[in-house]
């Protein structure tokens, strides 16, 4: 009898050990997958930046001059095209895409719905409307435009959130109301654009569709600083936010201050999207697409950093396509994102279980 129990005990202990080994192995695979994906995307992003330098721009610069010009060792045309036009544009695309991806992943996590991203629920359009209003009404330039965009985005996100509040926010109600408010904000942008005569159509179009034309170094600096701060804040808020997924009561039970976390996440997602929009105009669908792609690649539910990388590579590649694709180029970058974004939106809508 004893022999028998001992034997069973052995088997149990072996089984436990095997399970532990399996869990460790799985964790190792996950970590390795994480590392591979992050390194892969960083490489792709670098490649896109280089491609931006070589492939785009109004004038062709001899290939051997490109890298020195980017480092500031050339002057004249090469300096202007590479260092002052292409380099800021490429960096704006990568940093802006990263911010869109981060903001989208955060909003998807907050509302527990892959469709609830700043571009779908009208926050980007609100930022565009805010920028347009301060440009037209107060003749604002530079930092004033940024402020207007942020105020517009905040106003829209509070309006959408407030209107969909009914003792709690139901994500589909939020999306529906966001689509409506966003349409209104776009109409306001069109409205103001039509009123503005002195602005050329091309420049005004930026606040409707979004374009990386006219990216400059101060924009890059703003986006870079925002990305650093934003990443830090997202990492800080990540744990309490994932506790919210347990349900509000349980989250309160384990010591999460639910309303504060909600509000902080909403403000963070809004402001990240607003900063990019103030530089590029409302580029839709990058924020929507990045999170779900990152989730698929990592097979974990919550991946803000990889979502940022996915967003960066997406916007970088789209921007190069917008400038170089035969037949259609040059077009505003925001006009192309719908071509891959809308099908993904449809796929997310059709998929059986909506998970982030």
């Amino acid at each position, binding site marked *: 009898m004893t022999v028998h129990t001992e034997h069973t005990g052995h088997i149990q202990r072996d089984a436990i050990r095997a399970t532990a080994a399996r869990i460790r192995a799985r964790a190792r695979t996950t970590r390795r997958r994480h590392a591979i994906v992050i390194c892969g995307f960083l490489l792709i992003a670098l490649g896109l930046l280089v491609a931006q330098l070589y492939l785009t721009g109004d004038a062709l610069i001899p290939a051997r001059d490109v890298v020195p010009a980017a480092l500031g060792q050339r002057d004249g045309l090469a300096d202007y095209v590479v260092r002052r036009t292409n380099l800021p544009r490429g960096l704006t695309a990568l940093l802006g895409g990263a911010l869109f991806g981060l903001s989208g992943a955060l909003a998807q996590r907050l509302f527990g719905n892959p*469709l609830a991203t700043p571009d*779908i629920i009208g926050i980007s359009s609100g930022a565009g409307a805010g920028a347009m209003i301060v440009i037209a009404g107060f003749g604002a330039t530079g930092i004033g435009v940024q402020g207007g965009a942020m105020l517009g985005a905040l106003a829209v996100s509070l309006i959408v959130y407030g*209107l*969909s509040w*009914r003792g709690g926010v*139901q994500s*589909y*109600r939020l*999306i*529906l*109301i966001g*689509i*409506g*408010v966003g*349409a*209104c904000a*776009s*109409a*306001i942008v*069109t*409205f103001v654009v*039509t*009123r503005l*005569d002195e602005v*050329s*159509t*091309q420049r005004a*179009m930026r606040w409707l*569709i979004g374009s990386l034309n006219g990216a400059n170094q101060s924009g890059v600096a703003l986006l870079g600083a925002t990305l650093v701060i934003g990443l830090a804040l997202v990492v800080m808020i990540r744990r309490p936010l994932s506790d919210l997924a347990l349900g509000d009561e349980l989250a309160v039970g384990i010591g999460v201050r639910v309303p504060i976390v909600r509000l902080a996440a909403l403000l963070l997602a809004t402001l990240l999207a607003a900063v990019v929009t103030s530089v590029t105009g409302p580029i*839709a*669908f990058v924020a929507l697409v990045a999170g779900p792609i990152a989730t698929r690649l990592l097979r974990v539910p919550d991946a803000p950093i990889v979502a940022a990388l996915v967003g960066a590579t997406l916007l970088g590649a789209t921007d190069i396509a917008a400038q170089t694709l035969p037949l*259609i180029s*040059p*077009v*505003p970058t925001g*006009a*192309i*994102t*719908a*071509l891959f*974004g*809308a*099908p993904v*939106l*449809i796929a997310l*809508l*059709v*998929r*059986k*279980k*909506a998970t982030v």
Partner: protein
Amino acid sequence: MTTSHTRGNSHGATRRSPIAWRGLGLLALVVVLAATVLAGLALGAREIAPGTVVAALLGELPADHYDGLVVVTERLPRVLLGLLVGACLGASGAIMQAVTRNPLADPGILGVEAGAAAAVVIGIVIVGVHEPRGYFWFALAGAGVAAIAVALISRATTSASREISLVIAGAAVAALLMSLVTLLTVRDEAVYSSLRSWSVGSLVGRGSVIGELLPFAVAGLLLVLTLGRSLDALALGDDVAAGLGVRVGRTRLWAAGIGVLLAATATAAVGPVAFVGLVAAHLARLIVGTEHRWVLPYSMLTGALLLTAADVAARLVPGRGELEVGIMTAVVGTPFFVYLARRRVRSSS
């Protein structure tokens, strides 16, 4: 059946009888519509006295009278176009709301107008079509494709309630198609400014299309009047409708086809104008209740009223130049959409 009875009773108890109510509503609509038409003829960059307008319409002014010429050759075609397109959009909105059983349905929101606009731009830029009658066939094909796509997508979803997924599917399809329009038109500013009305609907300078598109519009509007009874039967639920001898699938397809035809006609005439159908159908129901026999003709009137009024308002907004009517309807229509969405989702949850 019981619901309609109780509704009728409560109407009788609290308000006038439905028939008197409908009559009053009709009277009020016609008066307001006439006033709007008069305003549409009199107001604008050049203000013309109502007396002169009436005289010009009656042909009592000399042929070279400048104000008279403005009224007859510029503003009259534009107002007529607004009335016709508004009627098409209103009826189309009412039909789509009935067919989808979704109070948020509207040819603009569901992406049908975007499909029509994209097809017309393809027709102009790639095929080289240049007359409105040619636009119509492209618009019809595009609108049909978009409508089928949105219907299939929303049918395939299970993640949200069907009402919501229909709107999101419409928004996605519209975004895709409007980006196609942008890609085809934005390349240089000349093309963009000449094709701009295909991004935002506009009545400016389009009075001449009225003659070419009139047959399609009239045919569509007449067909709408035959739909009342079958849509009323459908509103009772598929099973009851089938019990009453209605072929549910075929009726729904036929009605949706007419709705798409009307939306395509409207878009071929003036470009995509959203929210008119949505608001018109709700306004009509507010006046006549839920019976489609009445809702359909009244929503033509309310649609015509809304579009004409929006056009007048767009002309009066201070600033240089005129505003496209599509912007005006979006600014006015989106708050209404949000209101409906807010109310609707609460009651369904």
